[in-house]
């Protein structure tokens, strides 16, 4: 049973990672990041069930809280950038460089 959950988790993580790497739309990249976080959460919970203790569950809660905070800040940034530059493409926001 555990293996299935872990494979699913790895799959979700890989999908998220590829999304972050290849997509230009900031919102989509953002969603992919969330997907990677939740893939990790799934792995934590899986291991927690397998070992019969609560540590993994608790860490999953922490990850959710951090993710929620990140969503608040990240979405605010994305919306602001969109308002000023009329674009949500991560490649357009490349002013912070050498």
């Amino acid at each position, binding site marked *: 049973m555990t293996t299935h959950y872990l494979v699913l988790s790895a799959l979700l993580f890989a999908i998220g*990672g590829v999304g*972050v*790497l290849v997509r*230009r739309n900031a919102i989509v990249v953002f969603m992919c990041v969330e997907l990677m976080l939740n893939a990790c959460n799934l792995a934590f919970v899986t291991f927690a069930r397998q070992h019969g203790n609560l540590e993994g569950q608790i860490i999953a809660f922490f990850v959710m809280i951090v993710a929620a905070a990140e969503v608040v800040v990240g979405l605010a940034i994305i919306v602001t950038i969109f308002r000023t530059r009329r674009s949500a493409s991560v*490649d357009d*926001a*490349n002013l*912070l*460089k*050498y």
Partner: protein
Amino acid sequence: MEPAEIVQHSGGVIGVSWLTIVLPLLGAAILLLGGRRSDRWGHFLGVAMSLASFVVAALVFFELLGLGADQRRRLVQLYEFLPAGTVDVKLGLLLDPLSISFALLITGVGSLIHIYSIGYMAHDPDRRRFFAYLNLFVAAMLLLVLSDNYLGLYIGWEGVGLASYLLIGFWQHKPSAAAAAKKAFVVNRVGDMGLALGIFVIFTTFGTLSFGPIFSHASQASQGTLTLIGLALLVGACGKSAQLPLQSWLLDAMEGPTPVSALIHAATMVTAGVYLVVRSGAIFEGAPTAQLVVTIVGVATLLAGAIIGTAKDDIKKALAGSTMSQIGYMMLAAGLGPVGYAFAIAHLIAHGFFKASMFLGAGSVMHAMNDEVDMRKYGGLASVMKITWITFGLGYLAIIGFPLLSGYWTKDGIIETAMEHNAILGWLAVAGAGITGFYMSRVFFMTFHGERRWDKDAHPHESPAVMTWPLIILSIGSVFGGAFLIAGNRFMEFLAPAVGRPEEMPSFQPFSLTGLVTLALVAVGVVYAWLKYGRSAVPAVAPRGSFLTVFARRDLYGDALNEALFMRPGQWLTRLAVFFDNRGVDGLVNGLAALIGGTSGRLRRVQTGFVRSYALSIFFGAALLVGAWFVVGNL
């Protein structure tokens, strides 16, 4: 006999003897901080402070006289200067016959020169600053001679060096004056280094810097240590007193205003070296080698100074050569041990009077001749400047040792003591006296006699009373001072509690054989000078002269020697150091900085600003870590 014991003192005038130092110091502070507001009355304040200091010193002197002879070494504790662990320096004043003699000379002659300066500097816009420096000098010099320990002496020593530097360079708009001040400062530093080293060795040997314990324990130290201390102190004395080989600065120091030359570079500061040697007598007496070196330095300088004096056309430089020479006599006497100390100090005091009188006389002449210093443009001034002529003449007679005038008593005393000690030294000193007779007569005849060789616009006139009165008082001192001090061994008896009583009191016999030989030589010198510069015409431009004349005129090639031995190699050394610094040290540091700067300039191109490329590098990094983990984990 050993010197008398030093007794703690409180109360009376001696208890407030620190006023002698504080008053002129206060004057200097007020004049320097007061700014232009004090321009109108500044010189009066300076004179008043110096006179007040003299009055205190005189009162202290009389209070000392009131005590028994073996009670005349009083220590006035002021405060703890450096209470730090094993170093415990208490600042105090030692009032004994030696220090009070100096204090009287410094404040007495100093006050007269202060008064003279009112007239001499009347047209100088910076007269207030001049008086501030003079006051500063008096304070520092008094600290030097009154301090009861080597640290206080050293502070005073540096203080007079500073005042000397400031006053030589007083007209610093003249490049020659600025250079002369710098030269005096640098040469004095060399001497000061010797003094500092001597004080360090004294401290490591005796564990204290106070005169009392050092001198009472001096006999317990090894002779080698005492010789080392003695030679180090001698280097200091040579620097301050312009003795060979550190003599080069004194002739250039004549760039300063003439009252400065009279006060600092003739009467007082340059005699500090003699004071140091006499004060440290207990150390030198345990080190015969050091004493011998002192006498050799003294004789060499007295001859060198006299020879330089014969060839100078600048009246002040001729007098400066004479100063060197006379201090050479004092050094010679100081190196002879207790028998010579009294003569050294007596000659120092007598010299303070007649040399100050002649320098101020020279200043009076310069004042009259539009600041001309070339004696070839003087001549025949006797008839227009009667008072200056007489006072200068008395000083001149005193220095050549005319019978019964000051120099006769003190200088012949030195020559005879030297003759008893070592015939070679004695005869060299006699020869020096003969040369003195020649060069001083040359100065006197070229200035006051012969035909008038004045510039067309020169209208010589006698100086104002404020300048002539100090001259008159000083010349009285230069006539009677020597007889007063030496006749009946008065000064030897007075000094004995401070410097120790020699086993046999030297009794000065007028007209002994040596004295007559000396007088004959002096007479030859005078007559030769009269024939050459009094009777026959003096050319307006100096003739080229023989090799020897050029040798003397160029200060015995002292400057050339210093330049070849120290200045040029020093410059090479600095150039080498600068090269090493620029290419070596800077090269390394700058190269490293350039390397880091260049590398980071290339590396920052990685920062593209594209978020996805960052994400890609994170991905590769993570992949690398995971891959490494697999490899390592499988080992």
